[in-house]
Every structure is written in C-alpha cells, then in structure tokens.
C-alpha cells in the first residue's frame, strides 16, 4: 500500500472497513435493507476538485474504487473528505449537510435518502 504524507483521504480507511463489513452478517443485512448502488465522489478540500470516486454497491455488497461500471448508479453523492466522515459516523445529519451544501446529490432521491450512518461500521479506537 503506497501511502505517504501526501494526505490519503480519511474516507479511504472507512471505506476499506465498509468493504470488509459488508462480508459479515450484519453487513449483509445492510445490503438487504438498502439495495442501492451509490457512487460517491470525495474531495480532499472542495467539492468537485480532485475527486476520488468510489462505488458502494449495496446490491452486491461491494466497495470499489472508481465509477460504477454496471450502468448508472442509483444516486451519486459528492462531499468533502471531512464531511463524508462526519456523515458516515453520525456527526452530521445528512439532511443538514444537504441544506448547508456540504452534500450534493444526483440521481434518485429515494436512494439518496437511504444513505445514512446506519450503513457504515464504526471504527473502534485504539
């Protein structure tokens, strides 16, 4: 893993954990409950700049880097690295994030509104 001081995203770690989590029973339950494909665009500082794209496929239970290749994702969400973490860990309410412009959404509304902290495993602290 080539990681250096040129700041990898905080989100990388969380998405890596999500990837593993989706293989567990609890994770499979999430897949069952959600059943959507999300593409998320994460930017280090400003939305739309230097985006890192992930696909969270909650139909198949997979997390992959890069845009969704199976067609059109149900919803595409864009945020800053910091805000993605806040939303995924329940520090920021996605609705408020949207109202403040910290979260941009494209695609299906009903899919986007299922994108909640419930999806994500919580990192334990050393």
């Amino acid at each position, binding site marked *: *893993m080539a990681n250096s001081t040129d700041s990898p995203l905080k989100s990388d770690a969380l998405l890596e954990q999500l990837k593993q989590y989706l293989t567990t029973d609890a994770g499979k339950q999430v897949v069952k409950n959600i059943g959507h494909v999300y593409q998320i665009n994460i930017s280090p500082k400003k939305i739309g700049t230097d985006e890192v794209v992930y696909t969270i496929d909650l139909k198949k239970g997979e997390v992959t880097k890069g845009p969704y290749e199976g067609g059109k994702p149900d919803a595409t969400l864009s945020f800053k690295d910091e805000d993605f973490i806040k939303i995924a860990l329940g520090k920021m309410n996605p609705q408020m994030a949207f109202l403040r*412009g910290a979260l941009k959404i494209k695609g299906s509304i009903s899919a986007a509104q299922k994108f909640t902290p419930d999806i994500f495993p919580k990192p334990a602290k*050393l």
Partner: protein
Amino acid sequence: MAMRELVTGGAACAVPGSSSSSNPLGALANALVGSSSKTQERLREIPTSQLTGPERPFYPESHGQLPGSELDHPPFQPNEQASKFFSGFHSAADQSGLASAWNEVQGGPPPPHLREMQPGLAEFDRIYDQMPASQHQPVFEGPPQRVLSNFLHSFVETSRGGIPFHPTPLPLLGLSEGDKQCIRDRSSIMARHFFADKNEDFINAQVNALLSSLDIDSSKQVKGFQPGRFHELEDYWNESQALQRPGGHIADGWASEYSLNREKYANHEGWAQSFEQQYGANGWASEFEQEKFQLASAQQMAGGNMMNLSAMEQTRKLANTLAENNDPKFQNSKFLQFVSKMSRGELIIDDNQVKPNSLSPSDNWASEYQQQYSGGLPWADEFVSNKTNQWADEFAEGKQHASDDQWVDEFSKLHMQDWVEEFGQQVGEGASGEADNWANAYDEFLNEQVAAKGKTDASNGIYVFSDMNPYVGHPNPLKEGQDLFRKGLLSEAVLALEAEVMKNPENSEGWRLLGIAHAENDDDQQAIAAMKRALDVDPTNLEVLLALGVSHTNELEQAAALRYLYGYLQHHPKYGALARPELSDSLYYADVAGLFNEAAKMFPDDADVHIVLGVLYNLSREFDKAIASFQTALKLKPQDYSLWNKLGATQANSIQSADAILAYQQALDLKPNYVRAWANMGISYANQGLYEESIKYYVRSLSMNPKADNAWQYLRISLSCASRNDMLDACDSRNLDVLQKEFPL
C-alpha cells in the same frame, strides 16, 4: 442582537406592546410582512387587500376543488379566505378563550380584525389600514416618520412592476447622518433583491432617485455593505447574486430536500428530532391552531384518496413537530410549508415523485405558493415572473437537476423577509452598531449551530478547558489529578489536571497525563490538543509522541500519525540511530514499519516497539500483523489495560468483533472505569448488528463521560437501528437518567 429578537421585536428594539410601529421602517416591515414573525406567518396565510390587489392577475381564481375545502382554512382565495378564517377564528376564540392565548402568543399587534382585543395598537392599525391607499397614491404629509414610511412604501411599490422610481419632493425629515448612511446602505442592498432581474444601471437609478428625494448623498454610494469587513457576508452575497436561476431549480432542490428529510422521518423520526434540537422545541399555540385546521381538512381528504392516507398521516405528524419549532426563519421556510401541504393532501408522493394532488390542480398550488411565500412582498414579482405555472409543472414532474449551489439561491430567498424586518428595525434603532448587528444576524444563519465554539477549537487542535473547575485554587492539583487518575475517576482527573496546567502551563507531565486521561475517556481531539501542549514543552517525550500517533490514528489522520510515530523512533535513545533523515520528507508506512521491525530485532523485549508496530499496521490496515504485534506486546506487559484495548480495537476493525469483545473484557477487568473500552464494546456489538446490546454499553460509557460526543452519536444510530425511536428524545437531550434506567447493563 439575535435575528430572532429583531424579527420578533425584542425588548431592545421596540417600544413594548407596540412592536416596532414606532419607527418608520419598522412600520414598513410590519405592514409588508407582519409585525412579528408570528403575525407574519398568519398574514401570509391570510392575504389582505394590501397583499393581493387587483393588479395581481397571476392568481387563478379557483374555488373548491378540494373535497372538504370548506374546512381547509387556506384555500387560496385571498380576501374571501381571510374573512372566512377570521370568522372561524373568532367563533373558536369566543367559545374557548383562545383569543387571549392568541394575544399572548402573538406578542405583537394582531391583524386589524382583532384590534378590538388590543385597542392600544391603534397606531399599527392606522398604518396598516393606510397601506392600500398609500401604495397607489403616496401621501407625504404628517410627522417625519410617517412620511418616511410612506415614501419607502412607494419605493417598494415601484419594484413590483419594475417601474422607474421618480424623485419626489419631501418635507424636511431631519435625518441624522447615521440614519442616512443606514438608509443608503440598506436601500442599495434591498434594491438588488427587488430588481434581481434588472441591470445594475436600473438599480442604481432607482436607488439614486430614492436617495436624492431623501436628500442623501448618493455619491457615497454603496456596494451593499463594506467589503472586507464581513467576508462571509460578502461571499454569500456574491454567490447568491451570481445564481439567479429560474424557479425550477428551487423546486428541484426543495423536492429532494423534502424527500431526504421525509425518509429519515419515516424511518426513525430522527429528522424531526434533529430539527427540534437545532432550533429548540417550544410550542406555538397559533401554529397549533393552524395545524388543527389542517388536520380537519386532511380528514376530509380521507374519503377521497385512501392511497395517500398514510403518507399524509406521517407528514401531518411531521408538520406538527416542525410547527413546534418557533424559529421564525424555519417557520417561514418553504420546506415547512411544503410539508404542511403534504399533510393537507395537496401534494402527493407517487413513485418517488412529488405531484400535486390531482384533485388540486397545480395552478392552484402555484398560486398558493406565490401567495404564501412571497406574501405580497415586492420580490414576489421577480419570483412570479419566472413563470409560476411552468414552475409548478416542473415541480410536479419531480425532476432533479441537482445543480451546484442551488441551495444558496434558495437560501437567499428564504431569508428575504427577515431581511426586510431587520432593515426596518435597524433604522429604528439608529445607525449605531448596525453593521455589527448585520454581521451577527447573517452569522447566525450561516453559522452551523451545532458547531459550538468549543468543538471548533477542539477540532482545530486547541485545548478546550471546562467551565467551573472546582480544582482551580487547589494547592496541588497535579498530585490530586494523578490520584484521581489512578482511582479511575477520569473525568475528575481531567478537571484536576486542567487546573494544574492552568497554574503551570509549562508542566509537560500535567499536559501528558491530561492527554492520557482524555484518550481513556474516549476524547481523542482533546487528547491530541493536550499532547501537543506537552510536546511544545518537551519535544522529545516518547510517551507523548506515541500517544499522539495513536490518537491521530483514531481520528483517521494518517499522515500526522505516521509523522509522530517516526518522531518516536528519531528521539528514542536506543533506536534513534536507525532513523534516516532523508525519510522525514516522504514517510511511507512500509519504510517506517521496516525501521521499527529492525528495532524489534535489536530489543525484542521492548513492548513499546511492538505497540508502535501495532499502530503502524493499523494505519496501513494490515490487521493481522497489527494483532500479532499487540499480542507480542501483551506477553511482555499483560497488565496493560490500554494494550488490551488496542488489541480489541484492532480485532474489531478487522471484523473479528467477537474476539474483540474478549480483549475489551480483559481491559475492563484491569480498569473498570475505562470509558474507551466501554464505548468500544458498544461499537463491537453495533457492528455485529446487535444494536440493543450496543446501546447498553454506550450508555455505560456515557454515564462515566457524558462529554464523549462520539458515543452520543453512535448511541443515536443504535437507538434508531434498534427501533427504539422512543428513546431518541432522551438521547438528544442527553438525559442519562432516563437512558440508564431504560438500558441497565
């Protein structure tokens, strides 16, 4: 001054009991949007002749499309409807004494229909009644305030049709320089709102005409506000100006916003809670009254459309909850009104698309929209000129072009009313300090209210001290802190140690132990802040470097973590020689881990090296190696509770939650008050989908450190996942007594 005070005519800015009618601009604002936000809400629902004169042909006159609309209090036939509402209100009031309640909650002058209840408000009423006349034939006579008021009204009037405003001779008004400056500034801003669709020359001409009539020197003409002083405001202004878009975008943004929220509500009511939390949950009698009307109409609807009943039921509940929120901005928000409409069955959600109820044609809807949101305010025209009907159609299709920054546009529209009121209030107050008030008011809604200053500081790496520290003045707070720490009273130890470092800011040990206490108390941000201070005093302290590496790892701040862990190696008396200066610029996990592995070969019995390795492998997410490292360290230091926790956390993060729980148990056996381990237990259960179980552990950890925000957030998620929405209130109000009783461990 708070926006709310300004809006509601708080004590500081109005003559008690007469609202702000004693100043001309206040009166203007009153007459336009209602004297207080509450009246304002009413007035928009109940348009008067002032608001909907015959010159407004864009209201399609449509009567009684809704089954049961005779009970539906705002059926959007302006004048007729107003009287209907008030007669309804009066009869209710006479019977149940609601009138006094009304007066109480109004806090400002009632609409003229109720004037007999508050005879002292003749002043307001006079202005109010004058309105329609003064719109068309401005009368510039009488006391200066009245003249100014009427004059400004006529200025506003012109904006409706975009008619050029002509300078008018006025009697001497005796405006002070401050007044003039204030009027100049405000009218410039206001005009840009009114004439957003016009070019700059037109706007300047309008404003100059206004100013020359008032004998104000327009050469000091303004750009809205003084640039540079309020950067946020400036950015915001520019942004909102750059984004004049057709109405469709607003509808889109709004629809998606609504749906987002609605789903959350439907799932766990979390949505309403969060709003309530955000804005406070005070009841609002008049709003409640309105809800009853809606309820009645919704029940009428029931026969007509069974399909949408449950959705309506939900939205009605939501509308009720929302209505309890007395933030005027929120009350005026499109969103609330949208929800209200949903609850009345005027809009339905069909296949995830928002559609006007077929029983309620969309042009009716559109006119209601127009009426409610713009309420006869001047920028209504601007809005309506964006083809309201088309807008409604677009809305109905539920299209979603989530265009960038549309929310800014929407946001700026939402707060126009506030702006007008404030405009009035501030001229009333005089110019003194008005710029600051402005900035404050804007701050208030630009501000993320959740982000209390303390949190901002903490996330900026600045240590946040507790208020009211009983250990300040203690003769030896360090000793006290160490004792408390040893006894496991972490939160107390934190206070004592804070007292110590306030007394002796150069005490590295005080800061270090404070940092450790925070880490064990599950607050990494404070831990980092304290450790940084320790490092300032003692830059080579190995324990501090390691602790910083760990805390930054927890905060997912990988680069920082790596830097401190490498620092550990550099400053270590035995391993410092291994450090390679050329690495410092570009640290790679693999390189650093390689160096520590060398160190481990040199001194295999040094548990700390294995701990560092474990942390490093956590950073690179090589969990198997990390687990092995911690296990090695544990063989050397089996009594180290924090090490057991590190092992457990690593196992949990590599989805071995069952093993993790065993490790946490070991940690807690050694240190029963180890808040972090309790919280981690909760996380492990939650990650296994055992939400009920996780709740108990979160609550336990919070009972020992109620300041741990993480745990509160996680508790909230677990509560909703466990369908314990009934406990969300207790969680949001951080009511530990209730939670502990409900979820004993």
